[in-house]
């Protein structure tokens, strides 16, 4: 065991990636998949997951080549100081807005399922403040927190999958493979963004104890996520059918609501699940905020990351208040993923990978 040297183990990388990706996405995923390809949604999700593993592989190759430079450091090395910083700024915005978006979507669901009369602001503000508090502490306490909640999260997921089984009718899943490649290609974008969050890997690379094992850990993490997503989607379709699923706002929650647990003491499980869902969202936000602080620190230099987060706090809050309704917010979310998201998750890693092929590895310090 290492002592206070800001290094995280391979297992911790896996946990970090898993919990960063697992956020509000799983609540809406079955609906967005059903909108794109109806019954083939789960296949689409698997394809998207495999593509993500490919991108993670690219990220790891870049990271292994420059293990100590960090994200912005690598960009500077590859593209020069000024261009490197310019290329990093969209990423900064992406992390900020993505964290705000997660907070907002969670706030909306919490308002529906838990706190009907509490103002949205009052639901989101404590969550943001607590996220900043943990993100300020640095990578080690963050991953320890993540590890500590892992058993709880595993428990919640298992309960979710078991309850989801109750009112399933698997004949609802038919027919499969009823869509051509074109509609798959169209739908792949929204399927991919269900896995958004693994880009944190770019940022945390300097903190990984064994950089060459980072891919293995992330691979397992994403594999487990594919399993979780596929189970959720299949159970939703089996419960409601894909036609009905695409009309639901939060199909996963609706599925829990529709399932009556026989002989259970707890009557409305979705209330408790929603409360525990805070942990899912919280871990994602913390991880995004931490990435944000590291990127911001590297861009600005000389300022400690933890102080920067306090400066960003009001912006995250304001960002989470954009849009009057959840529909507006979802539209902003689409805009975000179409531009900054696409840039951070796909374009930038690929460009970095290609350019790094032409750079000598001796560039790493």
């Amino acid at each position, binding site marked *: *065991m290492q002592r206070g040297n800001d290094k995280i183990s391979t297992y911790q990388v896996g946990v970090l990636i898993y919990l960063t990706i697992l956020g509000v996405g799983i609540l809406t995923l079955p609906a967005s998949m059903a909108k794109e390809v109806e019954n083939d949604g789960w296949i689409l999700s698997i394809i998207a997951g495999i593509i993500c593993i490919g991108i993670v592989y690219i990220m790891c190759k870049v990271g292994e080549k420059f293990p100590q430079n960090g994200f912005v450091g690598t960009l500077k090395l590859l593209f020069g100081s000024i261009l490197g910083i310019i290329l990093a700024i969209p990423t900064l915005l992406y992390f900020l807005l993505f964290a705000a978006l997660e907070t907002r979507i969670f706030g909306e669901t919490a308002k529906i399922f838990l706190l009907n009369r509490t103002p949205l602001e009052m639901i989101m503000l404590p969550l943001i403040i607590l996220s900043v508090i943990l993100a300020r502490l640095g990578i080690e306490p963050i991953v320890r927190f993540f590890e500590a909640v892992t058993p709880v999260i595993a428990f919640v997921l298992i309960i979710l999958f078991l309850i989801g089984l109750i009112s399933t009718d698997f004949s609802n899943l038919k027919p499969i493979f009823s869509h051509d490649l074109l509609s798959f290609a169209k739908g792949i974008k929204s399927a991919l963004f269900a896995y958004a969050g693994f880009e944190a890997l770019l940022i945390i690379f300097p903190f990984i104890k064994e950089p060459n094992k980072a891919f293995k850990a992330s691979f397992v993490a994403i594999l487990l996520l594919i399993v979780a997503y596929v189970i959720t989607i299949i159970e939703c379709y089996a419960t409601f059918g894909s036609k009905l699923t695409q009309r639901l706002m939060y199909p996963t929650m609706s599925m829990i609501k529709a399932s009556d647990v026989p002989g259970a003491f*707890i009557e409305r499980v979705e209330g*408790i699940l929603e*409360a525990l869902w805070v942990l899912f969202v919280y871990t994602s936000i913390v991880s995004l905020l931490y990435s944000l602080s590291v990127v911001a620190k590297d861009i600005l230099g000389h300022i400690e990351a933890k102080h920067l987060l306090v400066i960003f706090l009001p912006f995250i809050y304001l960002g989470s208040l954009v849009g009057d309704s959840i529909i507006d917010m979802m539209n902003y979310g689409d805009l975000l993923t179409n531009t900054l998201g696409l840039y951070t998750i796909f374009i930038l890693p690929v460009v970095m990978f290609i350019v790094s092929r032409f750079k000598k590895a001796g560039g790493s310090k």
Partner: protein
Amino acid sequence: MKREILYQYIPNKKTPISSMIDDNILSVKNLLKDCDDVVYRQFKIGGDKGRDVFLFYIDGMAEKELLNNFVLKPLMLMSRMVEPTFEEIKDELYEASKVAAMSVTDFKENDNIEEAVLAVLSGDTAIFMDGEEKSLVIATKFFPVRGVQEPTAETVIRGSRDGFTETIRMNTALVRRRIRDPRFKIKQKQIGVRSKTDIAIMYIDDIVDKQIVDEVMNKLNNINIDAILDSGYIQQYLEDRPFSLFPQVQTTERPDVVAAAVYEGRVAILVDNSPFALIVPVTLTAFFQSPEDYYSRTVVVSFVRILRVICGGIAILAPALYIAITSFSPGIIPTKLALSIAATREGVPFPAFIEAIIMELTLELLREAGVRLPRPIGSTIGIVGGLVIGQAAVSAGIVSPIMVIVVAITAISSFSIPNYEVSAAFRLVRFLLMAFAAIFGLYGIVLGSIIVLIHLSNLKSFGVPFLAPIAPFEYIDLKDSLIYRAPWKYMIKRPKHINPKDEIRQVGDNNAEGQ
């Protein structure tokens, strides 16, 4: 910047012992002026013309029998009856009396007055001889002590019954009896400018992580207080976060717990006058373990450990859940139960939060009163509190019967946590969660738990994360953690999170199963 305490009797000051015995007597008597419990004795070796000898000790702390029979008698009487005569060995009298006359085992030599006085103040006896620039210190410590008794705070059904006492020597002996290994070190030092309290730092040299010992030594060396009265003083110097709710040092009254900890690569600290030993580093899981866990059989122990974790959860969460469910989401529980709770709460004029606070504070009052009262009266508290207040509060319509049940379950659960300090921490966490539950309901409980968990994730005890082996996750250490203890023959290695130098606890081929 080291704080210095202005004090005439500065520990570093050293007055050399002069060869003129009268000078020495004068300076000793000067130092111990108005200390009327000091006994001075002046006599001669070798009859009237013999050498002047002077000894002094503290009445009640030194063993008079030993002094009379084995120091004074040989020197004053028996030496005159045997060869060689006084005249023959006049010049080597000091050596001769040391080597041949006094039949006591424990000698020390000093060359300054202050050390001799300090030794006398700890119960020894100092002897000055005319013409010598040295003094002899004879170990004569003999003062009233409590015998070894069963520890009161950590009782077990299965396990040894001996507990630490107030005497550090007895305590080190109790531990040494369990570790017959020359590599088991007991380093002693004195802390407290005035109290000069003996502190013993115990560890096994080739198991312990040297960094931990260094950190302990470092922290102890920086203490410059006037007096250490209990290990609680030292504990607060050892903790990095004195304001944290959670103790970062384990305290125990049991020598078997200390021995087990030392065998795992931890460091134990004993303080004179305190029956509580300190153990560092410590993790949260250790507070959920009882020494008995290691003596009983695996399945039963694992069951009890699961029970304790559940109890910990109840002790923290139960009142908060009551508040959240009754005032925010009554729909979560079955309708019939929700209705019956609502019916019992109908006459209660307070919101659930106030109701819970009233009852929890009452419980805390009862507990505190029960501790303070003399034992025979203590049981009255239970009757008055439990029966009278509980029953009367319900019939007066101040609280609902469900609330009384919740409080009772909470209390019983918190008593089943083996460590007193952690269960005290849990009590305070309970109030925090109750406040959050009153504001945000179930969401608030999770937010409050996140706050506590952030703190725990950030907490370290001597470099070991407080949540280890859960976070950072250490697969091998799950054999002995919150919910499971493997049979002894499968626990091949020492806990990894303590970072022992020598990881292997036992050698053998019995690791084929039970992984």
